[in-house]
């Protein structure tokens, strides 16, 4: 790179070429850059080596149980809302080895990943989801070693949301659409006139990387246009949720008839928990080599929708689909507050889009609120 102007403020502007330079700079600095691209009919996350792999000119339509990628009529790179993947696949992968042992005396913990992560294109809802997982894994009494190794030193490029999907409701929860914290750099994409990105610096590491980019100073017009993107997006959320008092509402409605009703529709397939960027349940299992007697312990994603997950002596605690759905909903929106001090939901809408039968948490919670105090005598204990 040549003739690199130094950003003289913590807000500046880059051109589309600057975006390519940003991916290159991160790769060059030794990061494993993970970002969005179009694959298998969806905008998914994976390692990228160049900005050419980003979903330029693509968008996606979201409804309950329906998602379709489509062409846009412009070259927007981030003109879509979150896809089926979340950053949890990088920070708490679906299956990781925790240790291996060739004998009782030689237990080796899994070495740290070779390269630090750069998460490229994190939306505000997902920044909040990462903050929630940080609280769960890093700030409690016990630190999750594998998560800490992946999370520590991870570089975060946030992107303000200008194109909320049909199942989005971050505006109802105050978790978006504008990135407010938890990033090294945050971009707002402007496509209407000159295609450019307004960049905000969120950390010293972000400032170091920004020095490697061809930038120009941001004008008042740039800043106004950037704010307008998220202001306008906030008004176009596909879903809305009345978030006030949910903890108490759910605590007072554990025998609400809606739980039996939703259980009629629920497949107990676990998709909602697996696409949720905050759901953190895992199980550990041991494997051994057939011949040499060595053993390994692996951690894998699990779900409160599996009977095995709540299996204790004598059987599963939550045998009925009603009990499992209730556990998930009341934990996510209710007891999460008691356990971790916030809601477990960030309004990304993935559980609505990717439920194969389109069960919609905003609808379920509204139904419980509408029938506050009703008791399902057929199922209540």
């Amino acid at each position: 790179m040549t003739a690199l102007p130094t950003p003289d403020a913590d807000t500046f502007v880059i051109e589309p070429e600057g975006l390519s330079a940003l991916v290159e700079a991160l790769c060059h600095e030794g990061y494993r850059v993970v970002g969005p691209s179009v694959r298998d009919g969806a905008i998914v996350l994976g390692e990228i080596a160049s900005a050419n792999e980003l979903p330029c000119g693509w968008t996606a339509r979201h409804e309950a149980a329906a998602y379709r990628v489509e062409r846009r009529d412009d070259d927007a790179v981030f003109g879509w809302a979150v896809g089926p993947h979340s950053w949890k696949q990088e920070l708490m992968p679906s299956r990781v080895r925790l240790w291996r042992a060739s004998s009782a005396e030689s237990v080796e913990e899994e070495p740290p990943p070779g390269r630090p992560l750069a998460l490229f294109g994190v939306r505000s809802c997902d920044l909040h989801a990462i903050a929630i997982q940080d609280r769960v894994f890093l700030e409690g009494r016990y630190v999750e070693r594998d998560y800490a190794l992946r999370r520590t030193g991870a570089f975060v490029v946030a992107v303000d949301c200008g194109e909320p999907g049909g199942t989005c409701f971050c505006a109802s929860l105050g978790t978006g659409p504008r990135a407010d914290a938890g990033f090294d750099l945050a971009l707002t994409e402007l496509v209407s006139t000159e295609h450019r990105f307004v960049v905000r610096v969120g950390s010293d590491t972000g400032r170091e990387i920004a020095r490697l980019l061809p930038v120009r100073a941001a004008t008042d017009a740039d800043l106004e246009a950037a704010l307008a993107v998220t202001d306008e997006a906030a008004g176009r959320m596909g879903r809305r949720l009345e978030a006030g008092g949910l903890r108490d509402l759910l605590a007072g409605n554990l025998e609400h008839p809606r739980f039996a009703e939703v259980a009629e529709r629920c497949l107990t397939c676990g998709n909602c928990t697996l696409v949720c960027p905050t759901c953190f349940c895992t199980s550990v299992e041991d494997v051994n080599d057939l011949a040499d007697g060595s053993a390994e312990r692996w951690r894998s994603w699990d779900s409160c929708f599996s009977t095995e997950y709540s299996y204790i002596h004598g059987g599963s605690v939550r045998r009925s689909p009603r009990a499992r759905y209730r556990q998930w909903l009341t934990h996510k929106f209710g007891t999460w507050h008691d356990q971790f001090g916030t809601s477990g939901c960030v309004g990304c809408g993935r559980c609505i889009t990717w439920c194969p039968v389109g069960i919609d948490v905003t609808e379920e919670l509204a139904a419980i609120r509408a029938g506050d105090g009703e008791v399902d005598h057929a199922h209540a204990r």
Partner: protein
Amino acid sequence: MSAVATCPKLAVWKFSSCDGCQLSLLDCEDELLAIAEEIEIAYFPEATSGEIEGPYDVSLVEGSVTTAHDVGRIQEVRAQSALLVTIGACATAGGIQALRNFVDVGEWIPLVYASPEYVSTLETSTPIADHVPVDLELRGCPISKAQLVDTVSALLHGRRPRLATTSVCTECKARGTPCVMVAHGTPCLGPVTQAGCGAICPAYARGCYGCFGPMESPNVAALARQWRELGAGDDVMLRALRTFNANAPAFREASYDHE
């Protein structure tokens, strides 16, 4: 489950089946050499003509019970086996041949065979567990090679085998495959089918065919309503349910709603 004795004896038995699951064992190649060093393969007609007398520490049983002869023979196998593991959709659910359970076998035999008088068969094809107690089931049509090796390894070392009873969706999500129902509108049996195959078909943009049979709490009625939304009506769902695991109770009972 306790570990089996040193140099345990393994037997592989065939009932009504295509031999595909036994071939999965032969297909283990590298692992098979390790298995052969650790255990005595006492009876395995697909692989060897040698035969060692029982009793056996572990019997792998492939195939379903479709003849009067099978009914007697499975009792003998059970009596000689410390652990009996059924392998594949035939042994665990009755297999494709359980389609006969929905029709009059007497009427069909002359339509299929030139000399029906030579055919001696039961009216139904039933899983091994309908006849004798079964210690462990490996699902699939065919079984998963990885599950087979892991199970044999677990039994040899006294470890709990890893056999998920959750949906195939859990495997799609673990490998990052976008849902084919949601992203493509393709009807898929994954949400009601047990994991274990590694979610192969959706990774190739196909819906799940249900080879591993019903998952632990299948809600077929709810899935069928969604299939209808996607344009797949009763005939499609009937055919999907009545394929590899037609006689598995959850699929069998749900299939009557689509006749």
